[in-house]
């Protein structure tokens, strides 16, 4: 009896983690999945209703705006963060004095919450006392910068704040990547007469493929889950112009009490994340097994 207990001790110790994750992650996702096929309003109903919620979701103007915003935000956020991250990493890799200080400055926003970031940028971007006023006071009397309260442009203020928060992180990933390349490779290329631009463009940057891949996955993941930053910066406004899927989900669930519909929107988010993550996990695992 005691012997078998001892033999199974590792599995018993594993049980809390496995049990909690089975219930709180997999069980809950399945529950949400099931509820998305019911006509649940304030309280969940367990009678199946078919795909009605999904039909309703994709016919909703607000959801379409949310998806549209997500696409705009993701594209810009991704491109700007990666381009900025690479440039800063390459420049910092040139034996720069005070590299440590600069690196610390580029990365500190990552330690702040999106609510703090949003609060700061909301103040900076507000037209009456922020950047717009600063330029007007400096003598540019016709200067306007009202993106925060402009329906067409408000989504770009979220890009500005999001990039500010995350670009330093991409820089750190690329810097680590560049530093891990063996000096020999660069030396060999130089002996072969490769110019410095060529060394980066033709050799080092192509070698950073895994870093690109990781940054891509992380940034897309951050953008699909974007919630706090929007709440703090625009609350989805002006009007509903900066709604994003995560905001749509919580508003539909907790303000409009449309539990079935919000479950359907959550499942759409889940599938979008899965489409990015599963190939990533698969390739990571293959790489680990190959080593």
């Amino acid at each position, binding site marked *: 009896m005691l012997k078998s207990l*001892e033999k199974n*001790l*590792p*599995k018993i*110790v*594993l049980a809390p*983690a*496995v049990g*909690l*994750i089975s219930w*709180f*992650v997999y*069980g*809950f996702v399945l529950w*949400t999945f099931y509820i998305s096929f019911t006509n649940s309003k304030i309280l*969940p109903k367990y009678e199946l209703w078919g795909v009605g919620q999904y039909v309703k979701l994709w016919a909703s103007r607000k959801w379409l705006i949310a998806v549209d915003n997500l696409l705009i935000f993701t594209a810009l956020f991704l491109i700007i963060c990666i381009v*900025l991250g690479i440039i*800063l990493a390459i*420049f910092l890799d*040139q034996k720069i004095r005070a590299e440590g200080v*600069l690196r*610390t400055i580029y*990365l500190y926003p*990552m*330690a*702040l*919450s*999106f*609510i*703090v970031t949003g609060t*700061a940028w*909301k*103040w*900076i971007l507000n037209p009456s*006392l*922020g950047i717009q006023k*600063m330029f007007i*006071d400096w003598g540019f009397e016709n200067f306007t910068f009202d993106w925060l309260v402009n329906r067409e442009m408000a989504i770009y203020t979220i890009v500005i704040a999001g990039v*500010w928060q995350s670009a330093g*992180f991409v820089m*750190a*990933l690329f810097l680590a990547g560049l530093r891990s390349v063996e000096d020999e490779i660069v030396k060999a290329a*130089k002996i072969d007469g490769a110019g*410095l*631009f060529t060394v980066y463009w033709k050799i080092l940057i192509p070698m950073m493929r895994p870093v690109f891949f990781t940054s891509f996955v992380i940034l897309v*993941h951050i*953008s*699909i*889950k974007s919630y*706090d930053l929007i*709440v*703090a910066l625009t609350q989805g406004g002006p009007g509903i112009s900066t709604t994003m899927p*995560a905001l749509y*989900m919580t508003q539909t*669930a907790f303000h409009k009490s449309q539990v079935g519909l919000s479950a359907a929107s959550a*499942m759409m*988010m*889940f599938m979008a*994340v899965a489409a990015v993550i599963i190939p990533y*996990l698969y390739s990571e695992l293959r790489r680990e097994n190959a080593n």
Partner: protein
Amino acid sequence: MQTNITASSYKELEQKSKVTNMLLRWFLYFVLILFASYFIFPLYVMVVTSLKTMEEIRQGTLLTWPSALNFESWAVAWGGRGYGAGDTFLKPYFWNSIKMVIPAVFFSTFIGAITGYVLTKWRFKGDQWIFLFLLFGCFIPFQAILLPMARTLGVLGISNSILGLVVVHTVYGIPFTTLFFRNYYVSIPTELVKAARIDGAGFFKIFFKILLPISAPIIVVTVIWQFTQIWNDFLFGSTFSFGEAAPIQVALNNMVLSSTSVKEYNVDMASAIIAGIPTLIVYVLAGKYFIRGLTSGAVKG
């Protein structure tokens, strides 16, 4: 294409004429400092705004230096004005966050450590699948679990309480803490464990006497990661708590959004700094560990 040449390594540049070299270095520093100012600008604006009076804010610009070091808005942000109802300030919520973060970090780190230990040192058939099974929890968008979680907390009678948030953060921290410890223990030679087993050491003895004492680096990384994540969380805090049980990020957001009277930007900025200071301090003191955690676990958004 000046940038192209700049984006090349130092040694090669040395061979070029000294003047070009100098110009390029200047350009390099110029770009780096330009971006540094973009990153530092909001922090600067937050600090100076928090030190100004509203009168000064209306008269000056974002960049204007305050006329005197005026900490009144800090006092108001932290302790309020002292007029009962409707007077929201951060002090109680700051303590809520502390009471939430300490147990949640402790439990999630401990469970992650022992799970990582089993998955690497007591391997059995299929353990890789269990790891993958746990790992997937790092990636799910939390919207997919919000509804059932809200109901579960209700059933357990811990909705809108700090205890409820401790449970939520502990559970959803496990995938990350397991990932950290598993990756760390994989690199520790299994011979160490085997030798101890031959000497008669049991499961727990090996963990507490051999592995834990050499786990300091990964414990630091994990604790910093979990602390930052939980302190900065808004989604769980705002969904599962309100009123008195709210953590600081929720309180900050409520303070900034409340538009009952004239907007006091100086108090808003002081509040934002107060809510951000604990994680900033950790970042400045332990940046190396912070970045290490970030690069291995940053998939959580």
